[in-house]
């Protein structure tokens, strides 16, 4: 059990500055997820914590030790890799026992720990098999088992579910969450899948181009994204963006864009007043668009594509010149080329600076 602290962490390869000034405090027993598109530096950060990459500048603290110069074996961590990295020439038992053998645990203790972990993960019958005789899900479990037998201070997960099929991924996600609740070990989990990030993380770090964009609890990222990137990355389907301008009308502010005009609610007026007459980006989540209604917050849209998903329907619509996606009830009967009236809750709109992309 330990906290992990990263202080002004940097990683430079010859040409590429992969991780830029990452400051992060992962609390004891916390499940922290690093999420971002490929090449955002999340895996490099994780590998620096593991000791597999040299640190260019900054410090990494695990527990209360600075581990910058410690080899991976002395950091008391365990890692689960995307391709499982099971030793193909060893049985499942030997795979799981390897770390304990290397640390010279007594044989009886090794046996007990492997058996416990195997029972916990439901792979008790597979201990004598070789990795190539296992299915993807079973291999994943062995890889997790190999990590937990060591009782390390920190678990590191590097996209562990990416190689599984969709159904198994959901199942393993739940199991990982249950496992973490039970073991209460600090975990750092890297993924590019925002659904995994949202469902697994106590807190989530969104990264892009080596920079941390935002750190927060899942719902905080969803509800109050710090910038346009986070807003677009978290949530599926992604948030709709529209170029808009703020104008003053009758004492209040109105956001206008070709196709719609939406009055700004009083709570937001103060912040948006500075952007009067300037371009900004308006963000609307697909689930915040409701069918019907009139009044100030309503606008017309043309349906381009209907995607019925069973539990919901996704409508690809055009408002003015803007293409957007709306998520509506499965009972809605919408047809292509039909004109539908939508309305939005003004409190649930997001505004971003057009230049800096920061949330307003």
């Amino acid at each position: 059990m330990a906290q992990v602290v990263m202080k002004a962490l940097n990683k430079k390869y010859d040409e590429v500055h992969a991780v830029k000034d990452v400051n992060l405090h992962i609390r004891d027993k916390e499940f922290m997820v690093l999420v971002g598109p490929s090449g955002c530096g999340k895996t490099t950060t994780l590998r620096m914590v593991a000791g597999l990459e040299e640190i260019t500048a900054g410090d990494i603290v695990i527990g209360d030790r600075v581990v910058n110069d410690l080899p991976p074996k002395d950091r008391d961590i365990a890692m689960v890799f995307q391709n499982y990295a099971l030793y193909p020439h060893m049985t499942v038992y030997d795979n799981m026992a390897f770390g304990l053998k290397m640390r010279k645990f007594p044989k009886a203790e090794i046996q007990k720990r492997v058996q416990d972990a195997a029972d916990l993960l439901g792979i008790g019958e597979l201990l004598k098999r070789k990795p190539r005789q296992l299915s993807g899900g079973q291999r994943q479990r062995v890889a997790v088992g190999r990590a937990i037998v060591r009782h390390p201070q920190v678990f590191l997960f590097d996209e562990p579910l990416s190689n599984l099929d969709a159904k198994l991924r959901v199942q393993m996600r739940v199991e990982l969450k249950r496992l973490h609740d039970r073991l209460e070990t600090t975990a750092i989990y890297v993924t590019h899948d925002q659904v995994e990030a949202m469902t697994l993380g106590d807190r989530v770090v969104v990264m892009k181009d080596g920079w941390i964009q935002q750190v927060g609890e899942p719902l905080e990222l969803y509800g109050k994204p710090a910038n346009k990137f986070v807003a677009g990355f978290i949530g599926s389907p992604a948030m709709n963006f529209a170029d808009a301008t703020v104008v003053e009308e009758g004492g209040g502010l109105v956001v206008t864009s070709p196709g719609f005009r939406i009055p700004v609610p009083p709570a937001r007026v103060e912040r948006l007043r500075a952007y009067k007459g300037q371009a900004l980006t308006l963000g609307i989540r697909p689930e915040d668009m409701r069918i019907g209604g009139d009044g100030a917050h309503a606008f017309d849209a043309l349906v381009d594509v209907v995607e019925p998903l069973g539990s919901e329907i996704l409508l690809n619509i055009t408002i003015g010149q803007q293409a957007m996606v709306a998520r509506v009830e499965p009972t809605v009967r919408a047809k292509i080329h039909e004109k539908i009236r939508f309305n939005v809750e003004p409190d649930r709109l997001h505004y971003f600076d057009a230049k800096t992309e920061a949330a307003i």
Partner: protein
Amino acid sequence: MVLERPWKKWVFFYIPLTVFIIGTLFPFYWMFITAIRPDAELYRSWRAATNTPFWTLAPTLEHFRDLMAKTSFPTWLWNTFFIAVVSTVISLFCGLLAGYALARLKFPMAGTLGTSIFVTYLVPPTLLFIPLADIIRNFRLGNTPWALILTYPTFLIPFCTWLLMGYFKTIPKELEECARIDGATRFGAMVRIIFPIAVPGILSAGIFAFTLSWNEFIYALIFLSSPEQKTVPVGVVSELIRGDIYFWGQLMAGALLGSIPVAVVYSFFVEYYVTGLTGSVKG
């Protein structure tokens, strides 16, 4: 499977295959038939009425007996074996470490070093033996097995290094990283995880190195002079061709016996050998 016209299969598959097999195996057959043919048949005129060039009516083991009794063939066989095994072991050891380093460690000039090792493999032995002869003489190693044991690695190490480097690159590096997190040092991870997985590659490098040293001719011809120090390829040629007289029966018996160990080694490890060259690790 797509159905094709039968004649296509004959033209593009069976006939070329047959030609290929005959072309490959005929020299061995000729070697064998000459080795068991009595001298009377061997030195008969080609135009003689009783000439049977492709088979023999009176097979004999006399050439093998003569080879064993009247020449130093058993000693040559032992010399060849000893030299091939020791130089293979040396080359494999160096090749393993060098191949691993080139495949995995990041150090300055790694790429250049890898290429230059390969370039040394391309220097023809017919050029290299001149300076090597000088070195061998300075170290007073001439006419001893060590002359060959120490010169064969000049072409075996580059070969092993390159083959093993290629094989190591096919092994996912996560395996090793995982082992290092699990508590192994880099060296420990290499020995406990990477080497066992690389067994097919190591075996094929070993077999190839063994064959190359077993068949090597030029260095053996130059560095060894006394008959009892010679290896099979040199001994057979230099002791069984005297002037313009070819002892065909014994020559072929020697060649046949000399190729058997290699054939045996290959047939034992053929599966490893193929995976070793194509490189495949399935996690």
